């Protein structure tokens, strides 16, 4: 039940397989995340390690959630722990680091439990991937469904250790990610270091505020659905405006754009460069931008005029 007068706790899921760097990402983010951060660590057998590492990063509450049976049916303990933590500690920000072999879709289902309504505000899920192993691990029969599930359900992909792969491999990785998680923002990192804070304790997402904001300090991530098809000239004009910096510094963008007469086009934006390819699958038409000092109102109005409007 929503609790009167208490804003829901901003919550992020930080997923990733063993060795990808999710604990490192959390530690990096904690350096700039501000006060009153809580981290819920759910591991099987190695809790102490991650918990200790995160605690060492600073003034942060770390709670370790012990799993019962590892199967997905017994995860009600997660919901209870999240509810107790959000109410008891009332942090400004809650980061949940599940087991490296957890399925994000299952966790998202659990975190949507009615008992957490008004208690937490799930901002999104970040999948941390190891660029060196990603192509091999993302083959369908390498692991069970957990690995691809983490990628497919990510709002933000942190492609870590990108310095350890050649350009050719990086292109293959980006193509594979575009196929698996077409709406996700992909951020390449070394040692999980980003130019700005991906996650912060800044002012809470306002009730009724549209879009998904990945951050309130440094980088901002907006994800907007398209409500109708754009003409080619409209799309070209929009891309030119984005590249000119009219809406702020857009570092990265992705999307599935409905274009009249052409169907869905997959958009890739890196800096001022853009690329459009036909998209064969079915997915929600959506534009996702990440950057700094984005002119939110201006961009929102422009997209609204083009037939895109932010999701309520």
């Amino acid at each position, binding site marked *: 039940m929503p609790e009167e007068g208490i804003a829901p706790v901003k919550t992020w899921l930080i997923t990733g*397989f063993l060795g990808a760097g999710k604990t490192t990402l959390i530690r990096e983010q904690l350096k700039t995340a501000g006060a009153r951060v809580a981290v819920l660590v759910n*591991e099987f057998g*190695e809790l102490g390690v991650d918990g200790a590492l995160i605690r060492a990063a600073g003034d942060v509450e770390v709670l370790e959630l012990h799993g019962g049976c590892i199967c*997905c*049916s017994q995860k009600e303990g997660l919901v209870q722990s999240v509810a107790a933590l959000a109410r008891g500690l009332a942090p400004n920000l809650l980061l949940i680091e599940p087991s490296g072999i957890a399925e994000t879709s299952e966790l998202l289902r659990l975190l949507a439990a009615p008992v957490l309504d008004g208690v937490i505000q799930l901002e999104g899920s970040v999948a941390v991937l190891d660029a060196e192993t990603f192509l091999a691990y993302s083959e369908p*029969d390498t692991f069970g469904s957990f690995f691809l599930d983490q990628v497919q359900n990510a709002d933000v992909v942190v492609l870590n250790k990108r310095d350890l792969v050649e350009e050719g491999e990086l292109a293959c990785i980006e193509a594979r990610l575009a196929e698996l998680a077409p709406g996700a923002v992909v951020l390449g990192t070394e040692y999980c270091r980003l130019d700005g804070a991906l996650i912060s304790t800044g002012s809470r997402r306002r009730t009724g505020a549209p879009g998904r904001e990945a951050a309130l300090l440094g980088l901002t991530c907006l994800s907007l659905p398209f409500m109708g098809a754009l003409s080619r000239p409209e799309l070209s004009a929009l891309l030119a405006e984005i590249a000119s910096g009219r809406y702020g510094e857009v570092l990265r963008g992705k999307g599935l754009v409905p274009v009249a007469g052409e169907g869905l086009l997959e958009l890739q934006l890196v800096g001022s460069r853009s690329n459009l390819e036909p998209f064969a699958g079915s997915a929600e038409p959506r534009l996702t931008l990440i950057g700094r000092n984005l002119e939110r109102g201006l961009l929102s109005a422009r997209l609204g005029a083009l037939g895109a409007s932010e999701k309520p």
Partner: protein
Amino acid sequence: MLSSLIPKDNQTSLERVLSYLQGQNPQRIACFPLILNHAARVLGVPVGKCIQDAELFGKAHVAAYRRYGNDLITFLSTTSTLAEAMGQRMNFIEDDAPQLAEPLVKELDDLKKVKVPDFTRDGRMPVYLQATEYAVAEVGSEVCVSTVLAGPFTTAAALRGADVFVKDLYRNKEWVHELLEICCEAGLRFIDEILKRKSLPIIVEPIGSASLVSPRTFKEFVAPYLKRMSDHIHANGGGLPAVLHICGKTKPNWGPMLESEWDIWSLDGVDMGEAKEFAGHRVCLVGNVTPANLLTNTPEEIDAEAKAVCAKGMGSPCGFILGSGCEVPINTPGENLDALINAARKYGRFDL
């Protein structure tokens, strides 16, 4: 529902279960809620105390049977019990199931630390086996008593840490087989101890869930060892069935599961109708009311879910048993378990 409207049983639990083994229809289907740590609640003792004391452990499960009339007693507190006896440290919690401490096998070279247990003294083997003896002596003439152990794959993951073990499957294949060999040997010896006590060994292999391993991996690392266990039960069990439980998602791995020749599958997050179609001609199916629902839903909702499961499972050629998909949550209200078992009485009849 008024208790007077629930059909009365005219068979004991044991007679009911034996009907399946004899290829006959019982009066009504059996019901196997996987009552594990919840048994401590019935006896009114903390879980942590119950599962470390043979007398309490045995009495708790007998008390649960007498309270609910479940058709199978299942001695298990955690899937890491065999690993614990092999040297894995556990953290015991006052009123919950124990949890894995730091993995025993931190480095590949730690394989030498792993040993087949001495069943008279290692870990909680004596607790399990003495509790089994108690239950068999106390109620073995009226209900089937089972003692549950993790399969080699799950035991290996407990010793190594599940994340690391899943990675080992990709990077250290030969080493994984060495570890699995030891875990399999330990499991076979545990099965012998269980059979000596006239209990039914049941194998659980949750780490073999399709969420964690692909069909190719299952075929390479899970199925061969499961086959050795089912063969061992068939060869030494005096006609007892080989029973396999895998919780979570299993559908992608049904093919190799079938090849490992089990007689009974206990399933969790799957469509029972699809399972019946795929494997019903080869295996008896058990399942699969959602465990979390047993904790949170009302008896009426449990009844409705169980009815839907029965509608899918009934008529399966090798038999169908109503059950919970996985462990009955510790704090499950008793009336929800009553609703589940009454659903077997209402929707699983052969005598009407």
